[in-house]
């Protein structure tokens, strides 16, 4: 295996790649959210990650935990909607778990993800199957927890997130704005699950090799 690991620079790189994904897939996320929500998820995430990159440049945090907390705070104060508090909480709790850690191993990293996901569930009260980002995150965190090394674990986590994302399509939404649609929400992929998959995919690109 390689020299890539979860440290300050790779975490910044991860966030940079995620920001890029949000910019590139902005319109896709807008369209997914137009179908079952209010059409702003792409704009919200793109705006938030731009702001996060500015904040990272300004404050130059020194470890992965601080990087994630900086991004989390930027998201909380610039995204709004459901995604702002949820992604904010996810990254804030991960950041808390990684506070003052560096060169993080897979076990620690998986635990940080678990803490982040717990935060998302505590905040949003969604269960797996409710057709939310939780459906992409839950199997991803689980995969990471089963993994023996970071590289393989991240790849499997991203695959699990992707499957979780696809699996939201037939579901009937029970949380968030899409729940107003009732049965009519079935047949559409969840936008938040989709952006969550991109978060995992960015992690693979930045942290695995």
């Amino acid at each position, binding site marked *: 295996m390689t020299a890539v690991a979860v440290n300050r620079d790779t975490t910044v790189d991860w966030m940079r790649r995620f920001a890029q994904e949000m910019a590139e897939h902005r319109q896709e996320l807008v369209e997914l959210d137009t179908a079952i929500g209010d059409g*702003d998820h792409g704009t919200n995430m793109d705006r938030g990650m731009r702001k996060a990159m500015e904040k990272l440049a300004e404050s130059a945090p020194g470890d992965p935990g601080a990087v994630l907390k900086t991004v989390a705070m930027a998201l909380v104060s610039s995204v709004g*909607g459901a995604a702002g508090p949820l992604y904010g909480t996810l990254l804030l709790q991960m950041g808390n778990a990684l506070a003052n850690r560096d060169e993080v191993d897979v076990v620690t990293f998986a635990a940080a993800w678990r803490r982040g996901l717990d935060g998302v569930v505590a905040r949003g009260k969604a269960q797996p199957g409710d057709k939310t980002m939780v459906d992409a995150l839950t199997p991803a965190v689980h995969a990471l927890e089963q993994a023996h090394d970071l590289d393989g674990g991240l790849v499997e986590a991203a695959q699990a997130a992707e499957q979780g994302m696809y699996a939201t399509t037939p579901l009937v939404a029970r949380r968030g704005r899409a*729940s*107003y649609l009732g049965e009519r929400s079935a047949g559409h992929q969840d936008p938040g699950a989709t952006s969550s998959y991109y978060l995992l995919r960015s992690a693979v690109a930045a942290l695995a090799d």
Partner: protein
Amino acid sequence: MKKLINSPEEVVADSLRGMQAAYGDRLRITFDPYCVIRADAPVKGKVGIVSGGGSGHEPMHGGFVGPGMLDAACPGEVFTSPTPDQMLSATKAVDGGAGVLHIVKNYTGDVMNFEMAAEMCEGTEVETVLTNDDVAVEDSLYTAGRRGVGVTVLVEKICGAAAEQRRSLKEVAELGRRVNDRGRSMGMALSPCTTPSSGNPSFELADDEVEIGIGIHGEPGRFREKIGPASQVAERLMGPILEDLPFSSGDRVLAFVNGMGGTPLIELMVMYAEVARIAADHGLRIERNLIGNYITSLEMQGCSITLLALDDDMLACWDAPVDTPGMRWGA
């Protein structure tokens, strides 16, 4: 998409600049974060009232800031709930020592952002009134619950008046909850709206179709049907409202016919005539009314109806003076 804007990114900031230019003598506008605040805030000893939500529903909420109504409003991006730092900043700005009431419409985003804000508001007592009056949404454990719509305007006006009387935070919050409990709404659309950032209509409707039970962000409603006369549209909306509370003969009500932003006033007047007829058929006494664009969805055409079963206290608070850009009387 044709809009009177400079750019989708700047529309909220530009409109706040317009408010500052127009009402700068009465309102203080901050841009980082976005807040619209009574110029004389905090009012000592008065409960501060903060509301907020996505932009695109004007005059709600920024247009309701002023004596007798809100102390501050937090405008989010278009159709996107505002962020906790806005609410924190607004809460601190209007804290006159008697605590601050947050008025929150029941949408996942609004609820979570206001929750985070309340967690951050150390040193200020905060109470929250959640509005969820939209009977078009099934209220169950398996949904995000009913949306907050027209009743929000009434809660803001009535709580605003109660706060001016120097009632306690608990009393103002309880009154607000009672208004929400006794109010019901339902809306419909003739046409969708287009957010500046997406550039595409929120949904598509055939040339002869209407959507019944629509939300204020273009969320789809209960069903679509061929457009009928105004009398039929009014029945579609009044039926579920009247059943839900239920309102009963002899009740005194406030009837609120709200335009979604693109509906001409002449059509709202036609709708009001139908609402009054149906209310009379049910033995309701309309004691007060409100007709116009108060909680809108950009340029959407359509309307919503809200009925509030009034008690004496609400009535007196409704009649109390209010002096805001969007609602003004007795001042």
